[in-house]
């Protein structure tokens, strides 16, 4: 279903000129060093800093968005409103604790916030971060072990020549990775190393080169044409 392109509006054209100029500028300073009359490398680093500031400012919008969505859940007592209470309490609670006591604390040298308050919040941060956050994140990550097992059981079937080769290579690498197999026969490690060093590397490099060229062409297209709604 072919679509007909409409002409760019003035706003889209201005945006496209900005996109193209900045894209070309950053590519230019990557390859060419210009120190006089303007240090372009310093300019590009400054622009990067502004970009970081802009992207970080989006966090404020995100917090407002999250708060709004979950506040409406609570107000209207939707099905999952209790989880929304937990979410908002965790969001603002952890933010306050981290601002007082964490590597990102606002006042680590207690110039404004009393040291007693910081000492009070230190164990709270330690508990919430290391005993709750790290544990929860690691638990969800550990689900992957189960998912990999069921995906491997389902996917590794010798339906054809290619899938048989995949099956054998996969099994040999998994066996080679297990310390107990290395103890049983050192050859498993050698086979694993060979599979990872040669066929795996070759395949990865092929996909990487293809993806890199795709990214190059995609980026140039985006620099030239306004991407959305056309």
């Amino acid at each position: 279903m072919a679509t007909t392109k409409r002409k760019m509006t003035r706003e889209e054209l201005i945006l496209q000129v900005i996109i193209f100029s900045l894209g070309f500028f950053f590519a230019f300073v990557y390859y060419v060093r210009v120190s006089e009359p303007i240090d372009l490398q310093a300019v590009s680093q400054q622009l990067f800093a502004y970009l970081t500031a802009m992207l970080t400012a989006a966090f404020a919008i995100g917090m407002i968005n999250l708060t709004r969505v979950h506040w409406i859940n609570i107000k209207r007592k939707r099905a999952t409103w209790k989880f929304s209470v937990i979410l908002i309490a965790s969001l603002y609670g952890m933010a306050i604790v981290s601002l007082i006591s964490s590597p990102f604390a606002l006042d680590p040298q207690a110039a404004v916030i009393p040291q007693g308050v910081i000492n009070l919040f230190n164990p709270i941060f330690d508990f919430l971060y290391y005993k709750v956050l790290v544990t929860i994140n690691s638990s969800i990550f550990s689900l992957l072990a189960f998912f990999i097992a069921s995906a491997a059981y389902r996917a590794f079937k010798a339906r054809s020549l290619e899938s048989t080769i995949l099956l054998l290579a996969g099994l040999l690498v998994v066996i080679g990775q297990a310390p107990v197999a290395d103890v049983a026969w050192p050859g498993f490690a050698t086979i694993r190393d060979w599979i990872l060093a040669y066929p795996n590397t070759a395949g990865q490099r092929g996909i990487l080169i293809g993806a890199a060229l795709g990214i190059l062409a995609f980026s140039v297209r985006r620099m030239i044409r306004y991407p959305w709604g056309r």
Partner: protein
Amino acid sequence: MIELIEGRIAQLILLIIVLAAIYEVTRIARGRKMKTRGIPGLERLDGWIKQAGTLDRSVFFTPGTGAVTYPDTLAALALLEYVAERCVEQNVKLIVGNADLNVQQVAEDIVKTAYTKAGKAKEYNPDIVRFISGRQFAFAAGVMGILRREKPAVNIFVGDFSAEALAIAEAGRSDAIAQFGGTTNVDQLPFFMATCDLTLIGEELFTAQGYLKNDPDTISTYVGPDAGKIIAILLILVGAILVTFGNQILVSLLDL
């Protein structure tokens, strides 16, 4: 003072050659009706969206956990534009889950525009596009919850993914949802292949939108990178032969 940065001169020359090749091949391709090998199964996406409408179920879309500056995310957002337009056309409920706040803003804009273009601006609901979490596994848990509660007919997850992709895919698979995945992350591709009905591998992600829209102009631009691949293959072949015979000239040239 202007000078070329050492160690990047060969890169720059190679980049200019590749870009020139891409441009020339694209220019030639634009004048002809190109026959592409196609992306197997991509045509089924429309059918799935239609089926979701028939079953009165939703379509779930996520552009991944990457930042808005990542090419994968931009390609995913381009595909979101297509999916949003189809969903609005077919009156299918769309749910978009995001892990990045900046992607959230762009996704909202894309979906809102799709509704506006179809003359259904009043039907747009801000809850369609949701920010779930910026943390990888909190995002995965949120998506798994949405898949379990909302029971969409199609789960489209394309873009930049890390380990959370398998968790999302398995959750969708266990709920017997049609799954459409795609990424350039070679570490996650095996998991996509094992769990999705349809997978976009590597650069197919960047061509999907143009292929679906069947725009000859856009398709001709996808032929260009093949010229770059031919240059890469020739360099690899020549380089491998030279190095095998002990000649390091190509290696030294590329180190310039």
